[in-house]
């Protein structure tokens, strides 16, 4: 029997600091209504927020998609550029390519990707310069 799936996509605009956190807040609210366990919810909240901020600070625009089955939640961040030249470097704690503007706003600590990886149960990242970046995170839900 096919498992019931719910999916939702949120557009995130580049440099749109005014709306920063809106997509994450909407996603969190939905997950609370679905009764997702608090511990998992916290991890998704942190990862989702980091992903949303990364799209705003670093990308030329993209979207966040949250999809869910009763056994797991998948969060995908997808953008159309600029792409990450060195993924290992980007995953290093403290490394940041954030702009002056972003740093002035308190961002750019270089913990975004490492935080996402730490909070997700499964983490995959693919990127190509000039094409874009896709980050796929899976969170396991307790059964029963």
């Amino acid at each position: 029997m096919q498992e019931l799936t719910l999916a939702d996509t949120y557009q995130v605009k580049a440099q749109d600091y005014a709306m920063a956190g809106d997509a994450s807040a909407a996603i969190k609210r939905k997950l609370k209504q679905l009764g997702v366990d608090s511990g998992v919810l916290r991890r998704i909240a942190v990862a989702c927020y980091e992903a949303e901020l990364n799209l705003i600070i670093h990308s030329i625009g993209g979207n966040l998609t949250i999809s869910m089955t009763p056994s797991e939640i998948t969060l995908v961040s997808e953008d159309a550029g600029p792409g990450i030249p060195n993924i290992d470097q980007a995953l290093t704690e403290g490394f940041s390519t954030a702009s002056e503007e972003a740093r002035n706003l308190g961002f750019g600590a270089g913990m975004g990707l490492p935080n996402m990886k730490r909070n997700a149960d499964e983490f995959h990242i693919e990127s190509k310069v000039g094409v874009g970046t896709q980050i796929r995170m899976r969170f396991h839900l307790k059964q029963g």
Partner: protein
Amino acid sequence: MQDKRFHSVRLDKEKCRGCTNCLKRCPTEAIRVRAGRAHIIDERCIDCGECIRVCENHAKYALTDPLATINDFKYKIALPAPSLYGQFKKLVSPSQILEGLLHMGFDDVFEVATGADIVTRAIRERMRSMSPERFPVISSACPAITRLIQVRFPELIPHIIDMRQPMEVAAMVAKREFCQKHGVAEEDVGCFFITPCAAKMTAIRNPIGQEKSAVDGAISMLEIYGLLAGHIKNYPSALNLSTATSYGVGWANNGGEAAAVCPEKSMAVDGIENVIRVLEEIENNKLRDLVFFEGAACTGGCVGGPLTFENSYIARNAIRTLMKGCDLRHPDEVVKTSYLTKYPLQTTKKIVPNSVMKLDDDITEAMRKMEQMEEIVKSLPGYDCGSCGSPTCRTFAEDIVRGHASKMDCIHILKDQLKIMAQKMVELAKTTRE
């Protein structure tokens, strides 16, 4: 006197007009307007008192124990909240108020501000051995905020400090010391908290963090204001009853607890909407350096409670002036170590999430309902006008899915249907004429 479903915040049906003011302002969407009047959803209400503040018809009120209740006990002890000190102008010392309370008929008086001093010392001790994963530690002083977290931010529950509130500590110490001093039984002694708000009244009847409250009742500041004012002498009290430090008295103002417990790396936020905003950020791990968070549902802190008489900004200043005349030493120096061991200061019951937001206990069912909700939301106008009796279109969709409302309750959808029906009738009239 225990009641798991007790809520201090109540509605006077006679005065309710069925307008949308309280409906839109409730932070947990606990109000619905049906059949021309407001209804409070008990499970969702956190007794923050926002609805009491915004109701233009004074239909919302806080149920508290009437003053006459103190006569249920042979001996009565008054526990004034520190915010009471800010209600009176031109005071030189809190002792004047304490003396006034004794004149009113209480056998003894014990400052909740002293309870705050003890709790300050206890929290600081507790935090010294805490692992940084627990940071930011969230204050448990405002019961409305604790309940808010249970409903909307259950994943932050582990951050709430497992310490009893100052009014509980004050009641425990006051009762035991009075009984020891006068050789009377504890059952004959009633401790009454003089409260600035509804949330604390509810916390006495329906405690969080412990089975039973040590406090026997709560008397509204508004109820005794006039009476107490008549008993306060306008010259300094010779009795010098006040023992609280300026830090303890400072808990009345927003930021007072943070200043006493954790002056570095702490944050104090007042006003429930502001607290919600900051808790969202804490949830997103955005405030990584924060060690202590103090949240108050009322603007200005407890001095802004719905049962206070004085304007909260004037009261705030009055408290600051009074603080200068109190013992300026820090509670760490003043509170005896024996207090930390003699009394059970830590909470005994785990705080559990309040899952009212959940659509269903079964996750598959919840997902199905969510799907239905999203479909309904697409067909709604999105005005969030409140005419259907639900605060927003999304909440209305949720109510429909839960079986508490139907689509035709939306007057915009009804209007559109009527237009269609009117059109059909015009066409019908045309065909029957021919």
